[in-house]
């Protein structure tokens, strides 16, 4: 409770809590500054709080839509779907989890890849859909990513990936672990061709995704205050039995420790990444 709230007489405070009866979906509360925001305004602002700049999560398709030039886009690997090679079942069947995620997100998998242009420069862009099983990387995510890399090589294009993932997809076990090697190897080929890869880490980028494609950017960027790391903070806490440093595993912490080139506000991604790619590819200013 802030000092100001403490001053408010309790009678008024109760009225304030009655606000919860407002129809859901019209308003959103910012976890950054607790401001109540008009949903439509938040959306217009690319899901960034206009009051405090907190970056809310944004869907993969929306992100690519506002990032790439509007024309000449083509989705890559959209027809690929997960199979269930291990017939995996925990408390729920993997198949059912997939079906549920597909229904909830209207996506077939946790990564969307598009070839197109960024400020008139050929660009392949990929974005993780975190609400699809935590953006976890299974066979399809890996395959779509690699097809994206291959498309970039074919088009002589830059590659940009927006990561948002809890890591590898446990339900595909070793198939999923080996996607780390597969995606990293493909990025090695892109590198040999002298084509730039810009990795943008968003909240959260953890585990197998962080420890493969996300950290291999020629330029590593992040959104403000994103959780980025290999092991989850809870696992680390349980291992080391000490309180974790302030801001541990957040973008600002990673920048300070040399893991990132920059932290860039989502609203500037298109312009700033466009500018960097143009320089790396020795093109005129966009």
């Amino acid at each position, binding site marked *: 409770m802030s000092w100001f709230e403490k001053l408010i007489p309790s009678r008024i405070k109760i009225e304030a809590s009655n606000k919860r009866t407002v129809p859901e979906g019209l308003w959103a509360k910012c976890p950054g500054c607790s401001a109540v925001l008009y949903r439509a305004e938040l959306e217009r602002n690319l899901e960034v709080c206009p009051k405090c700049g907190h970056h809310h999560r944004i869907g993969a398709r929306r992100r690519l839509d506002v990032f790439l030039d509007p024309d000449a886009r083509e989705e890559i690997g959209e027809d690929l779907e997960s199979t269930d090679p291990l017939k995996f079942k925990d408390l729920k069947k993997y198949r059912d989890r997939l079906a549920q995620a597909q229904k909830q997100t209207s996506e077939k998998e946790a990564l969307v890849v598009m070839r197109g242009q960024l400020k008139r420069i050929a660009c392949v862009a990929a974005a993780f859909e975190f609400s699809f099983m935590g953006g976890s990387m299974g066979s399809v995510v890996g395959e779509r990513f690699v097809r994206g890399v291959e498309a970039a090589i074919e088009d002589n294009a830059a590659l940009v990936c927006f990561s948002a993932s809890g890591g590898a997809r446990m339900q595909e076990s070793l198939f999923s672990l*080996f996607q780390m090697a597969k995606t990293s*190897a493909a990025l090695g080929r892109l590198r040999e061709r002298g084509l730039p890869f810009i990795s943008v880490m968003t909240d959260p980028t953890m585990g197998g995704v962080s420890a493969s494609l996300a*950290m291999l950017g020629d330029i590593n960027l992040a959104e403000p205050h994103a959780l980025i790391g290999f092991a989850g903070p809870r696992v*680390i806490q349980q291992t*080391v039995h000490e309180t974790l440093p302030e801001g541990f595993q957040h973008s600002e912490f990673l920048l300070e420790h040399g893991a990132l080139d920059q932290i860039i506000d989502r609203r500037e991604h298109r312009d700033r990444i466009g500018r960097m790619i143009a320089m790396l590819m020795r093109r005129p200013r966009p």
Partner: protein
Amino acid sequence: MDLNFLEFEQPVAELAAKIDELRHVGDDNEINIAEEIAHLETKSRELTKQIFSSLTPWQISQLSRHPLRPYFLDYAQRIFEDFEELHGDRAFADDSAIVGGLARLDGRPVMLIGHQKGRDTKEKIYRNFGMPRPEGYRKALRLMQMAERFGLPILTFIDTPGAYPGVGAEERGQSEAIARNLQVMAGLAVPIVATVTGEGGSGGALAIGVADRLLMLQFSTYSVISPEGCASILWKSAEKAQLAADAMAITSDKLNELAMIDGVVPEPLGGAHRDMEAMVATLKATLIAALDELDTLDAAQLQALRYERLRGYGRFKA
């Protein structure tokens, strides 16, 4: 309970105790007792065979972490000659959870890299329970690139619960260190043979595991997350680790069936630790054969085939 035996081996442990007892009282009527011992030993072998013919994935997982299981340095000293350990990442520290160095395999110079666990409490702590920090992976990378410069094949030995989840490890870029190894290993111009000897724990294992030949010892495991970790996330209880071990296909036979690995190296009856000499001989022969096979390829072929392998990982439908 005899700690050298796992829970499911207790019937064998009881027989072993009985044999031991007989040996101690053996002086009086020697003939009968010798007969009895021989009889019990046969029985013990039969029982072991029986138990080991139908192990569950969870039991195999316990075997892969057996406190007496041979570790990397046991193999380094027995399979190879002239082992010269090389230390440090040249930037921050020497990580004792990953050991590397030059050695000869049947006369031929090679580069060895392996996770190293400790035997007693003191050594366990020194080796950080076989959980590497970024400097371990960066040392491995340095040695692998050195091997490439000098045209030496690389042999790696995987046995780790995973990369170390610690504050310093994160600060120094655990993710980047692992990712970099994956990318560089994919393109090295020398043969790489990786063998999972114990626990193949996730990204921490894979970071020295990108290879032209991937082998697993019979009772080793390889998985994206430990059975306990998987159980605590998906089953909301670490005690369901047995179920997670079943579901994840972590054993050598399963992964061989799924064509995720190139071969299973059979272990002596009762596991590698019951007969280290036999294990060493089998593994040595297997490694020599694997390198002989890879010798027929030039660098470009090797790189192309390795990329094809990596490119092919995954199952999906269009």
